[in-house]
């Protein structure tokens, strides 16, 4: 008989251990130790993330830092293990206590106690007028009277407080969901918008973005983007400090700069191909770049565009220097020109325009709503548990002016 009970007992013990506060204490200690260790102790640099994981690409630790490979610490198997164990502990504790907590908060509580309870009440106040009672103890209300003229009062607050611990622990599970969703399904890609032409979002091919203008005289003050989601057309104003959502993706201005484009035609009016670096359709001036080159391969002509420092900061209305050379080095043209215009050079009609390009970061992270839900649940639960202590008060007033008061815990309410 005893032997038959054993597996159940073992299971029960394991369950109790997993639900115990003692386990959580050790696990918390372990987590703190690992986190602090991760800050102050040199660690191996983290492995590169497949697909350009967000944390790493955005905040990569510099090579010369001796310590602080937090990203490495975050991925350390030990820390992940402790976090998983903490969550298991929180989950088991929540499941274990849920029924009991629910019964506690929904249990019917007598609003009037037997007479002896009032006789033995720890607090007795004299000369009390019953009308003043609600002022004496907030929330106290009349729950009946006796034929002898005694009046009974009852008040309670914080009935739902015990649910706070559940909410808190539940919040942590939501945070786990956030971490899993972030780790498995989040994505972050970059998309370059050229002036005027629509570009599809890499992760949402039906969603077309078009750069239509700027809020000021440089993209730093904001860029206007038209979003064609396939069935709806919308407009967005994005600034480097203000991201926006479109087509289920969060868009951030990642970088911007001057863009320049030329079209060339022969004397007979035939369009001639113009090549830009990286097979782009515009010449981009990225940060730190002061000049850009393009080529007219059929004519053996190379062009160089040198914008002014003002223009390089993303102001397309500034004049720039244009230089054209033949393959042997003979200079065909070298002069400061307006941002857009056209010229006839060496039998070719060259027209150009200047604009800005914007590189957006497009992020999807299904973990984010979970994070907000988890955070909300945590804050709500912590406020309930910590700021709203439960208290029940029973009082009896007798016509001799004596008020007998009992509470379910501790001293009299304030």
């Amino acid at each position: 008989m005893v032997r038959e009970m054993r597996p159940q007992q073992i299971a029960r013990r394991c369950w109790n251990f997993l639900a115990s506060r003692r386990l959580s204490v050790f696990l918390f200690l372990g987590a703190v130790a690992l986190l602090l260790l991760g800050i102050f102790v040199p660690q191996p640099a983290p492995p590169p993330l497949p697909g350009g994981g967000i944390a790493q690409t955005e905040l990569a630790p510099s090579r010369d830092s001796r310590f602080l490979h937090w990203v490495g610490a975050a991925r350390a198997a030990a820390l992940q293990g402790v976090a998983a164990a903490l969550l298991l502990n929180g989950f088991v504790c929540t499941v274990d206590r849920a029924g009991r907590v629910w019964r506690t908060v929904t249990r019917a509580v007598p609003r009037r106690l037997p007479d002896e309870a009032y006789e033995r009440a720890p607090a007795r106040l004299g000369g009390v007028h019953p009308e003043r009672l609600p002022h004496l103890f907030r929330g106290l209300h009349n729950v009946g009277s006796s034929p002898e003229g005694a009046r009974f009062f009852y008040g309670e607050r914080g009935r739902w407080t015990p649910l706070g611990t559940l909410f808190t622990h539940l919040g942590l599970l939501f945070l786990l969901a956030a971490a899993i969703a972030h780790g498995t399904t989040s994505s972050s890609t970059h998309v370059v918008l050229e002036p005027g032409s629509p570009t599809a979002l890499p992760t949402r091919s039906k969603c077309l973005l078009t750069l239509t203008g700027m809020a000021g005289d440089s993209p730093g003050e904001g860029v206007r983007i038209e979003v064609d989601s396939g069935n709806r057309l919308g407009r967005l104003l994005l600034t480097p400090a203000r991201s926006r959502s479109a087509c289920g993706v969060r868009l951030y201005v990642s970088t911007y700069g001057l863009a320049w484009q030329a079209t060339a035609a022969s004397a007979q009016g035939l369009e001639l191909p113009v090549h830009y670096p990286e097979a782009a359709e515009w010449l981009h001036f990225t940060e730190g770049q002061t000049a850009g080159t393009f080529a007219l391969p059929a004519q053996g002509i190379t062009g160089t565009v040198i914008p002014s420092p003002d223009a390089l900061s993303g102001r397309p209305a500034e004049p720039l220097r244009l230089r054209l050379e033949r393959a042997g080095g003979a200079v065909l043209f070298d002069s400061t020109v307006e941002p857009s215009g056209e010229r006839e050079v060496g039998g070719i009609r060259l027209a150009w325009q200047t604009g800005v390009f914007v590189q957006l970061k497009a992020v999807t992270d299904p973990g984010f709503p979970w994070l907000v839900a988890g955070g909300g649940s945590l804050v709500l639960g912590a406020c309930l548990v910590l700021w709203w202590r439960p208290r029940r008060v029973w009082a009896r007033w007798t016509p001799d002016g004596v008020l007998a008061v009992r509470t379910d815990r501790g001293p009299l309410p304030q």
Partner: protein
Amino acid sequence: MRESSRMEQLLDDTSLATAAALLLAAGTIVASLQLLRSRAGENPRANPDGPQWLLGAGGYLLLLALAARGLTIRGWPLARRYEILLLSAASLALFYAFGFHGEHSALAGVCAGLVATPMLVLNLLFTPSGVREPQPLPPLLGGTWFPVHVLATVVSYGGLLLAGSAGILGLVSGGSAESSGIPRQLDEVAYIGLSWGYPWLTLGMIAGAVWSWESWGVFWSWNSKEVLSLSTWALCALAFHTRRLKGWRGRPHRVVLGLVLLVLLLTLLVSQRLAQQAVPGIEYVF
């Protein structure tokens, strides 16, 4: 013209903060005297709320100093370490002034004053005047969630610094005065501080995550201040669990509280330096 420069002098944030430091020091001394008197069995004379008034006035002066900085730059004045330390001292002083009356009040006053005063004085003495100069914030430190994040976090520091200080005083006085009940009263003070600070810290961290997501598309980046905040948060949760756990009550619980103070001070004092070492160019502490 003369009027306005006199006004500016009067509202100069360094003078205001210096005056606040004097008030905090006076409040700490008065609270200590009250405590000594009550331990000697004497009744507190004159004004029993003296420490609350002094520390509270110091807290308000610090808020005024920060408002003066805000007026100078015509913007949000809370992002740099100097400012965050001023606000943390204010938060601690005001939490004490509004949160404690009657029971434990002198004890809590000593705990609050012993942290707030040196924090403020050292901040004033060791922050170079160039760094102290108010400067407008870069646009990324803007939006709705950034102020929520900073304010909630610093409000939480008021409670948590008090809890940590009570924990350390409890440890120090534990051997000699256990019988007088002081350590137990300090545990009570610590719990009140922890209960106030913890939900605010949680809100502050979540608001920080939302701000970071809206600004960069990342809600957690494992930088030093985030890891230190997470450690503080975990230590607080640990303290809630050890408070009434057999074998962990008393001294071990107070050690946890002391660690809360230590890690908080690390967050406030060194996380900026750590962040700069790891990612040059980052100077934001929060």
